[in-house]
């Protein structure tokens, strides 16, 4: 193990311990809510990234999986089921939905896949809104505790990011990236594009579904079709792009950045964070397709070159050359 890896692991350990001890440091509900929102977006952006970033399939219907997970969990849990199996059921239902729509959806290529999945999510959004027009209230409202919800989201986020990390570094992950670079070329290497896309979709849907389950367990009262809303696709997608698609760290950075910007701007000028976020997103897509991660790498390379140039400047070279 290299020194660099040890430093990274130590850093991750420190962050995890810090986050685990976080409830002992604060009692403030709004702080919890803010951190939970970051966790939620991290899970959604990271799970979107498995299919959208690593496999190159722009899924504009991610909200369908988030919504399906939340719907299943909320109905079971409100119906009297214990919380843990209700939450797991949310992930399972999302995968079932993914596999059901996956085969027809992957008949569509490129942009048709994007608008096709968008249409599917909208169909579910409207239909669920029609079937369940009533507001859903949290049954445990009298003894609602934020701390267990905090740990639920923390655990989910860690598992999602770890799963994404190990998936993309496995043989399957290599196959997914090969599909992104070109389906025909991948097929000619014996990589089944459909199988890799389905796996990526299932993994992506599973974690989005669990995020929905956690959301259903966390949120006090909401309309059941609200988690199917298109913003649950577009916001995480923009976060993944701004952080850097096709990297594990990108969606994490993007989510922190999004929520941070939102906090900052709400305090100052009202609800304008989305305008600035939209502008930033456009700039990233046009000029910096690798997102902030790429910007950081570019800066590092520039810095290294600048540093090397400084230490091998002509004056030094001439100086040594003149030695007797």
């Amino acid at each position, binding site marked *: 193990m290299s020194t660099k890896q040890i430093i990274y692991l130590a850093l991750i350990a420190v962050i995890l311990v810090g986050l685990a001890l976080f409830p002992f440091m604060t009692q403030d509900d709004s702080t919890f809510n803010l951190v939970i929102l970051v966790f939620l977006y991290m899970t959604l952006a990271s799970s979107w990234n498995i299919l959208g970033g690593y496999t190159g399939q722009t899924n504009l219907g991610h909200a369908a999986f988030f919504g399906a997970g939340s719907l299943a969990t909320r109905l079971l849990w409100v119906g009297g089921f214990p919380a843990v199996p209700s939450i797991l059921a949310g992930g399972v239902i999302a995968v079932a939905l993914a596999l059901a729509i996956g085969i027809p959806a992957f008949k569509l290529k*490129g*942009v048709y896949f994007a*608008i096709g999945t968008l249409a599917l999510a909208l169909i579910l959004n*409207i239909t669920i809104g029609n079937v369940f027009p009533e507001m859903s209230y949290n049954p445990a409202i009298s003894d609602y505790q934020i701390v267990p919800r905090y740990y639920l989201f923390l655990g989910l986020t860690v598992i999602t990011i770890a799963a994404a990390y190990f998936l993309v570094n496995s043989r399957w992950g290599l196959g997914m990236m090969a599909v992104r670079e070109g389906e025909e070329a991948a097929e000619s290497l014996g990589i089944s594009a459909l199988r890799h896309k389905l796996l990526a979709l299932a993994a992506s849907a599973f974690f989005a579904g669990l995020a929905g389950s956690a959301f259903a367990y966390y949120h006090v009262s909401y309309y059941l079709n609200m988690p199917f809303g298109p913003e649950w696709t577009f916001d995480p997608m*923009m976060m993944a792009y701004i952080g850097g698609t096709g990297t594990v760290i990108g969606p994490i950075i993007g989510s922190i950045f999004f929520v941070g910007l939102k906090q900052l701007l709400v305090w100052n000028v009202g609800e*304008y964070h989305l305008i600035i976020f939209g502008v930033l997103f456009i700039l990233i*897509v046009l000029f910096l397709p690798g997102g902030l991660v790429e910007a950081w790498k570019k800066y590092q390379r520039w810095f290294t070159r600048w540093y090397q140039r400084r230490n091998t400047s002509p004056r030094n070279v001439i100086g040594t050359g003149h030695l007797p």
Partner: protein
Amino acid sequence: MFEGLSQNLVFGILVGSLYGLAAMGLSMIFGVTKLLNVAHGELIMFGGYACFWAFSLLDIDPFLTIPLAMLALFLIGAVLYSLIFSRTIKLPDESKVKNSLLVAFGLSVILQNLALRFWTADERGVTPAYYQTSFTALEVRFPLVRLASFAVALIFLIALRLFLKNTYTGKAIRATVQNWEAASLMGIDIHKVYLLSFSIGAALAGVAGTLVVTNYSIQPAMGLGWTMKALIVMVLGGLGSIPGTFIGGLILGVTESATSFFINSNYREVAGLILFVLVLIFRPQGLFGTKES
């Protein structure tokens, strides 16, 4: 039962013409530039607000605001193309479509929030004096505003067809679609063609917007819904066919009103979306399109 049905059918056709017009701009832009501007619904919304402003502040008849909305949206389109979309125009087709789609999503977020800032989240509509006027024929009611909107949509679709068919500029646009390299060897400035087509597409969204605010209502969150309607119609009608797009609009309008009649009006949009997904999967070249090489 029968009267209700025929009334429904008539309303479906009348609103369908508006869908056709809404899709025409999107189709024009996509057909010429291969840019998928999913912020089209927001352009329609801006056209609607232009009409709303002119009507409520200057007391101009909503149908007479059409040139105004067209001009405003033509300019907005030109600015958006020059600032943003022109930067994706040189990419190979597949990444061009994808990047333009993403960029347009960012744009729709911006435009939607700008509209919130300028006009608040309230629903707006315009109600001229003749708003309630309607004619009855064969026991079917034809509201004046909707009939006039149908006529406007039809006039613009015919005008666009004549423009593309008979003017030098229209021919240059068609030539660029067929083979941009050969077109530039004719002395056609293809970047100007792209700019112009995008702006015309936006101007058509402006016209559609005035009709939407006159017949229904507008609000800042309407964009995605209208983008989807335009996308559905574009895919139903097949690319590059103006009559196809118009008929696609009528099909969507009738599908929606039939769903309202036989099932439930809450599912009218779902019916259109399901039709869309089915056509995407089973007949991606559209109902009237031909397979292109």
